[in-house]
């Protein structure tokens, strides 16, 4: 079967390029977002992740009520969610980037992230189709709990779409008041303009974006991604892992049906980040200073690949896309991704104070 260029390839690629552009401008990396909460007491990226989830939640709820999309939360399998999430969380600290962070940094020319990505794609493929599959399958099959009709468990059951709408609206209002409005008011007190649109081009293409701008852009993109992805036969919003697994499967087997929407999305992310970095003069081919770092990033990437397939999603599939759907499995995986990240970041960067 030939690849459907107009439904699969072009939409996936274009959305990926936009996603990569936003990720690079917003420096949107969940490893940094979670780790910096404890390490640097710096909350901007964490706020950005929270707002992106809320905007997606509201968007998905509205599109679901409008009959544009069918909600498709991930399954709950506590053993797989806990083990996979934790290992993914450890892995992203070692790899120096989450699934999306590692992918977009390849576009910035960071060769350490390229090595991490190769580990990630390999680890994910071996867990999905190869020697490690029995471990993931054992955990997924033996700890799975579903609704009586076999559908995935969500926090509010049948009422989940309504609650997505309510939490989305209330959450955005709270974020707008407590975080955004207070920032604007502080600016006003210093007699700075609240919205400074001078040098717009400079701000949009040369400097890092404000966390709220990044979050809203990602939330809106996630809605378009859901529609486009569903039209291509993959009824789910943004994801990363499946894309790299797909490439691996294609090169290993030559079966071109492996090249689905998500494979073009991830290639698009690298291209988008590359374009963005070139415009901002932030592109540079570079290697980590120490050879040991490259080895650690490879091990970290491989662990992320195993963790993501076991937990049925990386930080994008489970947190950015899964949290808005209020999937119990995604929430548990996400909680353990964050926990794994904190545990290892504490041991590596905070425990031994020199």
């Amino acid at each position, binding site marked *: 079967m030939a690849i459907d260029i107009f439904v699969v390839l072009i939409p996936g690629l274009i959305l990926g390029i936009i996603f990569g552009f936003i990720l690079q401008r917003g420096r949107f*990396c969940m490893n940094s977002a979670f780790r910096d909460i404890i390490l640097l007491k710096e909350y901007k990226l964490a706020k950005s992740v929270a707002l992106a989830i809320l905007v997606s939640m509201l968007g998905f709820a509205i599109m679901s009520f409008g009959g544009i999309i069918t909600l498709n939360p991930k399954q709950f399998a506590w053993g797989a969610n806990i083990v996979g999430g934790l290992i993914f969380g450890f892995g992203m600290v070692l790899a120096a980037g989450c699934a999306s962070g590692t992918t977009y940094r390849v576009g*910035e020319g960071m060769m350490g992230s390229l090595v991490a990505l190769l580990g990630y794609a390999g680890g994910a493929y071996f867990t999905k189709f190869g020697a490690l599959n029995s471990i993931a399958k054992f955990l997924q099959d033996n700890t799975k709990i579903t609704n009586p009709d076999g559908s995935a468990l969500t926090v509010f059951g049948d009422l989940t779409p309504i609650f997505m709408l309510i939490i989305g609206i209330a959450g955005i209002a709270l974020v707008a008041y407590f975080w955004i409005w207070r920032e604007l008011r502080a600016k006003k007190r210093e007699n700075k303009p609240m919205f400074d649109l001078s040098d717009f081009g400079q701000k949009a293409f040369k400097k890092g974006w404000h966390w709220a701008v990044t979050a809203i852009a990602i939330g809106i993109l996630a809605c378009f991604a859901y529609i486009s992805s569903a039209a291509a036969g993959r009824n789910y919003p943004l994801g990363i892992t499946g894309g790299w697994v797909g490439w691996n499967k294609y090169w290993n087997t030559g079966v071109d049906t492996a090249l689905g929407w998500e494979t073009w999305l991830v290639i698009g992310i690298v291209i988008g980040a590359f374009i963005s970095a070139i415009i901002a003069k932030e592109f540079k081919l570079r290697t980590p200073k120490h050879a040991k770092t490259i080895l650690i*990033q490879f091990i970290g990437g491989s662990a992320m690949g195993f963790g993501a397939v076991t937990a049925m999603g990386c930080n994008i599939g489970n947190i950015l896309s899964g949290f808005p759907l209020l999937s119990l499995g995604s929430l548990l995986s996400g909680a353990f991704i964050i926990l794994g990240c904190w545990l290892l970041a504490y041991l590596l960067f905070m425990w031994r104070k020199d």
Partner: protein
Amino acid sequence: MVDKTDTLDCRGEVCPYPDVKSKRKAKKMNSGEVLEILIDYPLSAERIPETMKSMGNEVLSTEKVGASEWKILVKIK
């Protein structure tokens, strides 16, 4: 032109080492001294000045010196 006391070269360090190392370095330095930090990682170019400010230090300048290379000058409080 400011006289810098010390230089910390974090080029080629991966996330979050530029931030962690500059924080540790700044803590060891004495009041009034100036630290020059060299980095090539975009996120840290924005995050290090923020962290330094929240530590109470004065960020004298953040200068882009080349493709994905920055020089940050910090005066220790």
